[in-house]
């Protein structure tokens, strides 16, 4: 059995979630838009899931639009809010996920001014500087992530709400990595849009949601059909929606227990890492999600370390799964002002509810063995 420490990339489907999904994978369930009985049963299941997610995200169920995942949610938010509007500015944090970053950059071609919000070495926004940037001209949308997928840094996005609104913009929060890890309350936050994804909270892959306040003017990304109030065409993915709902309900029940458990694993790992020579933990000391540690070992290329750990049965990553294999250091660390050579060594460990202290011990031992044995040969 491999040791799986890559829960920010994706999580294992909870068997209880599978249980909830199974009737919709085996029964004669219909198209949720059909008017006949099976269609109505599918519709009811979709609406029940919407309420389950609303509880976890702290929003109204009618504010939820189902999507195919966090990436689509981010695209829908950024493109949906800018579509048809007179192009002004769109701002996004320098450490955002590619789903926000690439989407924002694509808006340039449509005439938008696109700017990054500077992020410090601690992974946090420099508040006064951000407010000056906002004041410099009209803004349509600001997109900031609640929890960073690589470093785990928790951004205090609540502080951005008033300045962004004062500048006349909408605030979009990518909460894909925050959902189920830290408490979320969309209504209290007063953000305008928020992205979430199921497969990061032990739900199925390929289902997510965009949460949108009723007063936000949003244009659809997929045209066709009247599903999701005309904002998202396409036959509903009933089984996966039911799975996301069930995963959300469990995440809410177990939020504190999961946070406490992963936090203790993280502390165990961090103290072990500190006793190894040449280890640097990124955004050390910043407020962080309980489950995430990103670090580098001096003199080690991250990808090489990953390969060796993989061979020993440990699944970790260098950063975001989608950019892995590109051989480039993480834009997140570079965005925080970390030097290229240091960023190039990044390894991300992200714990999940099913990991154990024994696994952390094994990991530390394996890491020590790799770095001590190979140190001379591997040094650049």
């Amino acid at each position, binding site marked *: 059995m*491999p040791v799986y420490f890559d829960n920010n990339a994706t999580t294992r489907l909870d068997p209880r979630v599978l249980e909830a999904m199974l009737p919709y994978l085996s029964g004669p369930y219909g*198209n949720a838009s059909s008017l006949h009985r099976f269609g109505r049963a599918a519709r009811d299941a979709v609406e029940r899931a919407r309420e389950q997610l609303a509880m976890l995200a702290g929003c109204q169920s009618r504010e939820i639009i189902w999507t195919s995942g966090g990436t689509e949610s981010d*695209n829908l938010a950024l493109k949906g809010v800018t579509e048809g509007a007179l192009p002004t500015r769109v701002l996004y944090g320098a450490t955002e996920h590619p789903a926000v970053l690439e989407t924002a950059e694509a808006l340039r071609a449509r005439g938008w001014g696109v700017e990054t919000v500077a992020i410090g070495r601690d992974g946090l926004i420099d508040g006064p500087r951000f407010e000056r940037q906002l004041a410099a001209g009209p803004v349509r949308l600001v997109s900031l992530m609640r929890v960073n997928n690589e470093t785990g840094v928790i951004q205090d996005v609540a502080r951005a709400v008033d300045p962004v609104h004062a500048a006349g913009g909408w605030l979009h929060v990518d909460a894909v990595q925050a959902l189920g890890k830290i408490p979320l309350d969309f209504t209290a936050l007063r953000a305008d849009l928020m992205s979430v*994804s199921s497969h990061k909270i032990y739900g199925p892959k390929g289902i997510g949601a965009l949460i949108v306040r009723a007063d936000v003017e949003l244009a659809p990304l997929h045209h*066709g059909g*009247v599903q999701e109030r005309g904002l998202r065409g396409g036959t509903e*993915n009933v089984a996966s929606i039911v799975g996301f709902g069930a995963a959300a309900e469990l995440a809410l029940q177990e939020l504190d227990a999961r946070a406490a458990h992963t936090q203790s694993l993280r502390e165990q790992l961090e103290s072990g890492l500190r006793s190894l020579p040449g280890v640097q933990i990124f955004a050390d000391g910043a407020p962080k999600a309980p489950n995430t540690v990103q670090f580098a070992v001096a003199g080690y290329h991250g990808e090489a370390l990953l390969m060796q750990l993989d061979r020993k049965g440990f*699944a970790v990553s260098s950063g975001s799964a*989608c950019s892995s*294999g590109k051989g480039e250091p993480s834009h997140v660390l570079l965005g925080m002002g970390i030097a290229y050579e240091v960023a190039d060594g990044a390894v991300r460990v992200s714990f999940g509810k099913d990991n154990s202290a024994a696994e952390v011990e094994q990991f530390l031992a394996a890491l020590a063995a790799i770095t001590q044995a190979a140190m001379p040969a591997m040094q650049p």
Partner: protein
Amino acid sequence: MIYLDYAATTPLDPRVRDAMLPWLDAETHFGNPASDHAMGRSARAAVEQARTEVAALLGCGPDEIVWTSGATESNNLAIKGALEFRGLQGAHLVTSRIEHKAVLDTCRYLETQGLRVTYLTPQADGLIAAEQVLAALRPETAMVSLMWVNNETGAINPVAALASQLRERGVLFHVDAVQAAGKLAIDLAQTPIDLLSVSGHKLYGPKGIGALFVRKRPRARLAPQIHGGGHEQGMRSGTLATQQIVGCGMAFRLAGEAMADEAHRLLALRERLWTALQVLPRIYRNSPAEAGVPGILNVSFDGAEGESLRAMLPALMVSSGSACSSATREPSYVLRALGRDDELAGSSLRLSMGRFTTSAQVDAAAAQVVEAVTRLRAWSPLWDAAA
């Protein structure tokens, strides 16, 4: 309960479910297909295996398949992606009035962005003729988007013949093949279609997964519509849903294996149903007898409004018009385009059969429909039996 709504969605084939289950519950199967570790690689291998299965049914290369969240997305990506890449301004597109909403709504949206669109009306047989399309071409026509099989009537458009004509003229050709895949032979190696949309849940696969075929040679170029991590050769970002994709691959494989037998069987069932309904006077067949897919029979019943009729058939799951437009309860635009008046268009049922339909179900369904129509007509002050 008798389910005759296979054109709206199909039940998951138990073999498809069995193929999906390991990717939902095995401890070593949940990796992200984009991850660079053993679990990521095994998920990736499953995704690629499924890609070859979809490609095999379509007769294309696996690297020409882009996964999407369903055919609504595939249609959006094909049309918006290709036209955005080429430049919309002043461009012209030819499509038909009987396309699925995913195409029509996309075209209507693009019209607000400067695209010019010709919407062809089908001939009296419900088909769009190749000559109609060719006659509508203009020097600035960038694209033709035409469905292979209509979802309401089952009419088969002459897509293969049209493809080479459009290729000769250098016009990009997108085909919505959602209702064609697994029902009739598709060979993209021989048919110069540039972009083709398919969906998993119409052929016993899961909902929420689809694909777009994007031709490599000559290369069809698309601007991505979902940006992000650069998945799917940069054309469609987002974490791949392994279980959905594996299910889709298995569904396409099974469809290929079953196609010949199933077509034969469904054709017989369709004609059996039509024969049984013909005890009723003044019913009109909206599905073509020859150029139609085997599983779909659309019938207008004079004097029996479609929604009332459906309401009188609680044990029969059928639709009046397509599922997507049924929520809006307008008479079917497809049937109106066929030349049926509002009255007859609104008095129709689509009976669609599939893999698990039996002749006993067909007989029972026919008897129920005959009885319901007879009663509705008897109640209706407008129905004149002698007319």
